[in-house]
């Protein structure tokens, strides 16, 4: 995507240092990840070095530096999900997709992340696919879910 969308976003801000994280968030919403070109434009505009922007962006778990997959899969490993078997669901997901967390499958269908808590602890363990939360998962249910997603 061209930088046009990004410039439109930047217009909404004053250009202060405190705008950096909100702008990065919006830029990521636009492209699905932080493109190097986008970071360059933001750097010029906010007059903060690219180096420093990368420093800030890599600190926060939210920012991605690679194009995402078509479906975004998040396995929750909050405390409640952990005690109810979240690790095994993650292991199974990794095995089925053939990727590690933070990676995207070769066919570009899924990217996989582990998250600390989605806040649905009472329904643990949970998995989120593109922001839809699936509750009370098991190693069998996750396999079924992956099969269903593949057919879509």
């Amino acid at each position, binding site marked *: 995507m061209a930088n046009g969308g990004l410039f439109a976003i930047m217009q909404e801000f004053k250009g202060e240092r405190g705008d950096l994280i909100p702008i990065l968030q919006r830029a990521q919403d636009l492209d699905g990840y932080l493109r190097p070109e986008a970071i360059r434009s933001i750097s010029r505009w906010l007059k903060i070095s690219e180096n420093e922007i990368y420093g800030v962006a890599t600190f*926060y778990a939210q920012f991605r530096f690679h194009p995402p997959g078509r479906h975004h899969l998040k396995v929750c490993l909050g*405390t409640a999900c952990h005690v109810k078997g979240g690790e095994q669901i993650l292991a199974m997901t990794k095995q089925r997709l053939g990727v590690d967390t933070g990676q995207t499958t070769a066919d570009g269908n899924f990217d996989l992340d582990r998250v600390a808590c989605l806040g649905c602890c009472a329904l643990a363990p949970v998995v989120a696919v593109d922001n839809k939360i699936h509750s009370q998962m098991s190693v069998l249910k996750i396999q079924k879910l992956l099969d269903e997603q593949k057919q879509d």
Partner: protein
Amino acid sequence: MSKNKIDSRRRQAVAKWEKLRNNPVPFIYIGAGSCGLAAGAAETQAAVEEYLKRKGIDARIIQVGCIGPCYLEPLMDVQMPGRERISYGNVMAKDVARILHAFFDDGEIPKDHLAGHFGEGELDGIPSFYDLPMLKPQVRIVLRNCGIIDPDDIDHYLARDGYKGFEKCLSMTWMDVLDIVKRSGIRGRGGAGFPTWRKWETCRNTESDQRYLICNADEGDPGAFMNRSLIEGDPHCVLEGMLIAAYTIGASQGYVYIRAEYPLAIKRLKTAIGQMRELGFLGPSILGSDFSFDIKIKEGAGAFVCGEETALIASIEGKRGMARTRPPFPAVSGLHGKPTIINNVETLGTLANILRNGPEWYAGFGTETSKGTKTFSLVGKVRRTGLIEVPLGIKLREVIYDIGGGTQKPFKAVQSGGPSGGCLSEEFLDLPIDYEHLAEAGAIMGSGGLIVVDSDTCIVDMAKYFMSFTQKESCGKCVPCRVGTRHMVEILEKVCDGKAVLADLDKLEKLALTVKNGSLCALGGTAPNPALSTLKYFRPEFISHVKDKRCPAVSCKNLVVYRIIPGKCTGCQRCVKVCPTGAISGPRSEPHNLDKSKCIKCRSCYEICRFDAIAGDAIIIES
């Protein structure tokens, strides 16, 4: 908008609310908090819409927030014209038609899925919702509106005395308000329990042209969701609290720092802030007074450490979220170097209630040193999970057994305070929940996550889990936290893998104390708590990992084996089909074989064997 206009708007709101209570058409309420939606509330709502359309029934659907008993999600309430509102639990899309059919066609109150009604006393043999075992011991002050009102409608909030606490403020001096907050005895609900008034006083007494108020909604503790539920269910009570706090400390700009992982809560806040602005509760000269205030939302970008005050400020300023040394405390020099108050969502959500009902009323709940109520997210292996609010001083036993319904398997421990807290064993069940007693036992109140674990959970694994969480979330600024937590995780991994020796446990303890004493901020200072408390109360479990190479909870992957019991296996082949590595083989109708060298211990065979129950529990996991 002036005070008079607000009064007339409130009268309209009350009339609207009364109308809601004496509804001309049937109302159907759907519990649409994040957890309700995860349980299938959207599908349930779609089924309701479809049913009403198909039958041509004129009824209104109202989305409400979370009322607490998450184990009953999705919740659907039906209120026929002029009748009580009746609540149904675990209503999946397929159950909707049957329940609505009974109401609309048969004129009956169906008993299936029935949870309770929202009126007084008993009604045709239907219990009151508030008499349910989970609700009865609770005192709902902060959560009074959650699940009752439409969070997107400010009129609902106004009709239930919303913004009256703030209006009362405006007729008083800041010193009077401070005195009320002081007399109420409320302490910060974010974890540390610092008296709210003292922080405010310091801030107000610091000479400055600008002061800031920040609402800390960066609820990062895994296993805690009280703040999310409150904002989703009653955003205005938190925002009213912000007005009260800002008025007292003399702040003109406020921020809500909220996790980006809570999209619904952010949406509700945005709507609520828009409504406040429209009615004149935000902006210059609020309600004709000389008090001006505005609120901005800042979305966190995913860093646990940003719940720490100075790291949170760094994040708002657009920097890496790293803590700095204190003093100066943010109340003296915070955001952009100006005096800043950071209050937790729940603290702010309580303020309007204190202002409205008086400090003595609030101080009447709780104990001598820990006043009032506290919300907890009760999760893990209890029967009834959910969001609860209880008076401080209540015993852990009452929370876990009376409210939570106990555990299915034998109770092992309760973890309080998230990654900064500790694991308490059975002997602490009669411990009163307040700041002092929890700290004395080696746990903390924290923001309010209570995770109950039973005999199936390995306590070493639990300690490892929390340590690896804090290790990943350590900002890396100071050595004890950055390096120390890493080594602690390595030792715990060795224990879980059965590769540790007894001396490792002493090393772990020593390291824990170094990290605790040597770290700069509360993240490092409390990070060793889970390891220290489990070592203290569950040492035998550590020792059996080390000496016997056994995991008593049969949970540590490298210490367990999967085995098929030939006498029980019927040879149904279901496990053969689900095994991802082909470790199970054997012809139909004959006991199968499990090749341990191929087994990756993924649990699929175990689950399908129990689920389909042809062979039942022919596959066992043992240590």
